């Protein structure tokens, strides 16, 4: 039995092709994944991401808990509303999940975690929580509005949100006044200038019972619905890792292209740190651009002068109009190398490139 988000009926009405994603019945697309992709790169699209779980951490011990649980350093969150991307590691240095943490008060932080790992994450956090209250917010829905016109169209749809969010910089969030009546007991609206597409935009968190009202207001303002298919091609073009594909509990973030999110500075111990520093890094994550014709897919084998590698995420890129991938490659392979990818009975040539491939409507890698 799959779970339904508060927008399930809206997806059906819009002709969404629904598929099981991490136990949730979610829209893959509403007609054409490629058109939805272009809509986000060129204008504004919206995704129902209510399957992701918001977890509030409340109590004076929250900062210490997060300093211990997260590989990135919440010390970087120097003002209320700031957000940070981080991995949460196991003692072996593998990735339990990747998440965004929002800081509002020293006794109030908010996490947003992946749907497929939510229960595992909750268990892990509770195990370490001590006196911190761990509150899964299953009463909330989330809509990601993304694209160059996303902010303007969000404000057109939800004028009451504008004042509190007009000055937000990327990776900043604001709690909003209640947008819709009747006000619910747990009225909680948050607008964050974050996303998973490589475009500007917002992620709107709001009470589940108001999700459809907000969704319809955004539709009326010209924001088109986009499914998880476009979300995947957009994030891959943007060079963003997907949990379960580009990294998992057996992958070090240092080998998954996430070294920039790991704060290894002295003076802070976090779960997994010791294993990370002890383990030699012999793999790296880089991008591939297919030179021959075909489509790169996850798990295809790569032959390089330094040994074998594997594609972790691959697809056809609508923006580049050719196939791209994220790949785990032996250390020593460098940007500019040509490698061979095994696809069925052939070996196709691909160029090693540095992601991202595309962001903010622009192609960011050189043609080969």
């Amino acid at each position: 039995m799959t779970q339904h988000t508060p927008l399930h009926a809206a997806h059906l009405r819009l002709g969404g092709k629904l598929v099981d994603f991490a136990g949730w019945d979610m829209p893959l697309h509403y007609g054409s994944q490629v058109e939805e992709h272009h809509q986000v790169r060129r204008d504004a699209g919206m995704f129902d991401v209510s399957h992701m779980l918001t977890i509030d951490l409340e109590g004076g011990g929250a900062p210490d808990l997060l300093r211990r649980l997260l590989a990135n350093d919440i010390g970087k969150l120097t003002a209320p509303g700031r957000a940070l991307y981080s991995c949460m590691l196991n003692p072996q240095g593998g990735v339990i999940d990747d998440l965004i943490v929002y800081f509002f008060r020293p006794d109030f932080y908010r996490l947003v975690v992946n749907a497929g790992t939510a229960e595992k994450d909750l268990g892990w956090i509770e195990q370490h929580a001590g006196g911190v209250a761990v509150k899964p917010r299953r009463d909330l829905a989330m809509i990601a509005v993304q694209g160059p016109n996303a902010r303007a169209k969000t404000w057109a749809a939800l004028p009451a949100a504008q004042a509190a969010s007009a000055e937000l910089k990327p990776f900043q969030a604001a709690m909003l006044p209640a947008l819709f009546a009747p006000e619910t007991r747990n009225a909680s609206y948050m607008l964050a200038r974050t996303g998973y597409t490589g475009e500007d935009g917002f992620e709107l968190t709001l009470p589940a019972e108001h999700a459809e009202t907000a969704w319809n207001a955004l539709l009326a303002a010209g924001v088109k619905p986009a499914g998880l298919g476009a979300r995947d091609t957009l994030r891959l073009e943007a060079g963003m890792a997907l949990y379960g594909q580009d990294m998992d509990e057996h992958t070090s973030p240092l080998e998954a292209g996430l070294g920039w999110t790991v704060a290894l500075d002295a003076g802070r111990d976090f779960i997994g740190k010791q294993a990370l520093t002890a383990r030699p890094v012999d793999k790296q994550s880089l991008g591939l651009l297919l030179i021959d014709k075909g489509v790169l897919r996850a798990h295809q084998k790569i032959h390089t002068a330094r040994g074998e590698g594997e594609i972790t995420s691959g697809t056809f890129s609508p923006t580049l109009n050719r196939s791209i991938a994220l790949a785990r490659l032996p250390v020593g392979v460098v940007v500019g190398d040509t490698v061979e990818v095994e696809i069925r009975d052939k070996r196709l040539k691909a160029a090693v490139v540095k992601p991202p491939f595309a962001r903010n409507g622009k192609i960011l890698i050189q043609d080969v």
Partner: protein
Amino acid sequence: MNTPANLKYARSHEWARLDADGLVTVGISDHAQEALGDIVFLELPQVGRKLSAGEECAVVESVKAASDIYAPLAGEVAAVNQAAVDAPESVNQDAYAAWLFKLKPDNAADLDALLDAGAYAKLAAEA
């Protein structure tokens, strides 16, 4: 769902049509293109390759996934549709115009073993 009555269909979602020149034209059904989504790459068999019925002989890749195409009947590949290779999205636009390959059938009567439009429409509706 569009299933022209003048075509025969395989359970694996290919269509086949016996032409006046004795060749059998093969493509994928409208139901198949819709299920695959945006098609971005076609890999077609070499002209001259001999195929047995049900043999894997081509690949249709959409943004979402790669899907194998099977020979609906035995024969030799007589032609492939280069225009479709150059514009894979044409299969989404009209799966019955954008054929994939033509077979010189070993025995044109093998077509009788395939599904007619009514039976295929029923199968596709249940899928």
